[in-house]
């Protein structure tokens, strides 16, 4: 058996302490040298929303590659340091503190989901650093009077119902849903969106027959689906964040319950994984709200879709586009201001419009843009935009949603 002598132990201890000191000295360096601009971000690359953050990370990578190809920022090459937060609020706080305090990054990019951006943006604000977030549209994020926070989507979660409710309103009264169920993950983003749906649909006379939240860790949706099915709603509006969207659909299939209308937030826009999870034919008629369309005629959008597909072998998702957009916003501000002065960058963004692949973005003093979200629907295995009229990719609207395919 291997045993240390007392002297050996002392030597081992000394060695360990020396190694720790050396490691810590390395960790407190000044980050990138003067010849590069270091950007820091955290993403939930592991955990329950890893499916969404991988395309987002690829969106950041593509933007970075294109930026460096053009000569970088301020004539310096740009590096991106991304840490994994595992979809944990404590970890995301630690990561941004580390990026700012230890790695001394020059600029920040946001993480994913309202749950993570809520605390992460507070760390950036406390350190007076610009924080452009690709996701995180919960209302409470923008109600804290932050000066350095900017949202890189056309609109926030509270606007999710807009196009859908307009479409319901356009239906003859006899064709409108009479009852609705509102299951939602307990998440700052979906909470706000589902509350807005419920309020606006109730005003139209749609009666609420089910309204419950479930924990983010939930993987078994059988009991929830049974509870919803027992109320027989015409419409289900589901506040989904990631894989929970497919989880509820699969539980509905087991219950042999198919609502006439099904709207889910976020999940159906995972164009690579969602059809595989629920079965391609079962996506037919499912609705969602998105910030971006691959077909949209915005400057640079077609090039983005082509470059992303070439680089990663799969088409971009909405999350990829949002991350790329956040990069575009940051790039525009630094290029226009000509320095990394965080105050000047924030001031510039508060007073200028930035052309992005999700359309022109301009922000109010809270960092909220004034654009519109799009209403999308799965049709014949394709993800189509069905509203607003000027962004439609199809004239068809599947209503009612067909029964599940076995």
């Amino acid at each position, binding site marked *: 058996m291997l045993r240390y002598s007392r002297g050996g132990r002392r030597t081992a201890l000394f060695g360990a302490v020396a190694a720790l000191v050396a490691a810590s000295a390395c960790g407190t360096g000044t980050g990138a040298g003067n010849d590069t601009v270091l950007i820091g971000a955290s993403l939930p690359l592991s955990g329950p929303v890893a*499916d969404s953050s991988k395309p987002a990370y690829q969106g950041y990578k593509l933007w970075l590659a294109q930026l460096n190809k053009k000569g970088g920022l301020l004539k310096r090459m740009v590096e991106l340091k991304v840490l994994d937060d595992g979809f944990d609020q404590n970890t995301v706080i630690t990561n941004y503190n580390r990026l700012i305090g230890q790695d001394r990054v020059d600029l920040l990019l946001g993480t994913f989901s309202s749950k993570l951006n809520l605390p992460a943006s507070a760390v950036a604000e406390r350190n007076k650093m610009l924080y452009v977030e690709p996701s995180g549209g919960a209302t409470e994020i923008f109600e804290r009077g932050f000066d350095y926070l900017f949202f890189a989507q056309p609109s926030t979660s509270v606007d999710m119902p807009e196009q859908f409710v307009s479409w319901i309103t356009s239906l003859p009264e006899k064709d409108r849903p009479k009852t609705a169920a509102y299951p939602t993950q307990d998440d700052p983003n979906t909470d706000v969106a589902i509350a807005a749906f419920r309020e606006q649909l109730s005003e139209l006379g749609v009666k609420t027959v089910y309204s419950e939240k479930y924990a983010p860790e939930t993987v*078994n949706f059988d009991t*929830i689906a049974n509870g919803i099915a*027992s109320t027989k709603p015409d419409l289900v509006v589901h506040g989904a964040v990631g894989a929970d969207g497919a989880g509820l659909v699969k539980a509905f299939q087991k219950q042999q319950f198919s609502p006439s209308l099904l709207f889910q937030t976020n999940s159906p826009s995972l164009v690579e994984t969602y059809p595989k999870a629920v079965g391609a034919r079962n996506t037919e008629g499912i609705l969602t709200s998105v910030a971006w369309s691959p077909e949209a005629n915005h400057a640079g959008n077609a090039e983005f879709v082509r470059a992303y597909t070439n680089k990663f072998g799969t088409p971009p998702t909405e999350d990829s586009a949002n991350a790329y957009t956040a990069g575009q916003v940051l790039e525009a501000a630094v290029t226009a201001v000509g320095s990394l002065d965080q105050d000047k960058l924030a001031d510039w963004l508060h007073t200028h419009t930035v052309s992005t692949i999700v359309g022109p973005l301009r922000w109010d003093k809270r960092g909220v843009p004034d654009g519109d979200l799009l209403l999308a629907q799965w049709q014949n295995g394709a993800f189509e935009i069905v509203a607003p009229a000027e962004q439609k990719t199809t004239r068809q609207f599947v209503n009612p949603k067909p029964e599940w395919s076995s």
Partner: protein
Amino acid sequence: MTELVQTLVFGVLVGGVYSLVASGMNLVFGVMKVVNLAQGAMLILSAYLTYSLWKAVDLDPLLLVLVTAPSMYVVGWATYYLFIERARTTDPAMALVTTFGLALITKGIMALLWGNDQHAVTPAYANRSFTLGSLHFPQAQLYACLVAVAILAGLYALLRYTWLGQSVQAAASSSDGARLIGIEVRKVRAAAFALGVAAAGAGGALLSVLYPFTPSSTDHWIGLMLSIIVLGGMGSLPGSVLGAVLIALAESLTAAYIAPDWATAVPYLVIILVLLARPQGLMGIRLREDMSRA
């Protein structure tokens, strides 16, 4: 009334699988008083093995229990001799830390091999149900529950009616006494640990059909297993079956009648309540803290 019966059906079906998942951990604790915190990682590792095999050979994933359980037995056996035995003889607390470390390492390896994306095994019957009147019996849950019950019955018979099983019980009761009657306690402990990991191997195959999983799923399942064996009684195999069914029913009833938001908190509430009211669990035996153990 139908909703209540349906909720109970869901609870019982899931409880069967929970029983198998927790029984391995309880067996290990019963024999060597080691809380194997790597059991959740072993469970998810087996789920990934099932996924890869299912993709490769396209066999029914529930049949793959015949491959994953023996494979995980070997993993458990090697783990015992390489890590657990040494840590256990140094200090019982060291064994706990060792299993925690093994859990982290296994989690990292799974992330490297399979990535952090969600995986799920989806045979043709995954989203189908049998219908009896207005009740639905999800096929995957039903088959998984039946397989779990069959494996548990086999495990019970092995422990009760075979020489190995009786040696395991003797070593659990008194290792010195077992040595006196000629039992090689070291080998028996290794077999018991490997059996516990094999149970996780079987459970992982069933779980892969029922729920999506990532390497991080280990945290959820270790919490659930701990609550089941704390409720049922640490070291009691029948206790883990009872604890599993009660927790599964509590989760289902909470989701249906209180709020789905509270369902995932049920296992943790159970741990707190049981430790306050009946620390030995429902079927555990209360021992004096100052009683010397062999």
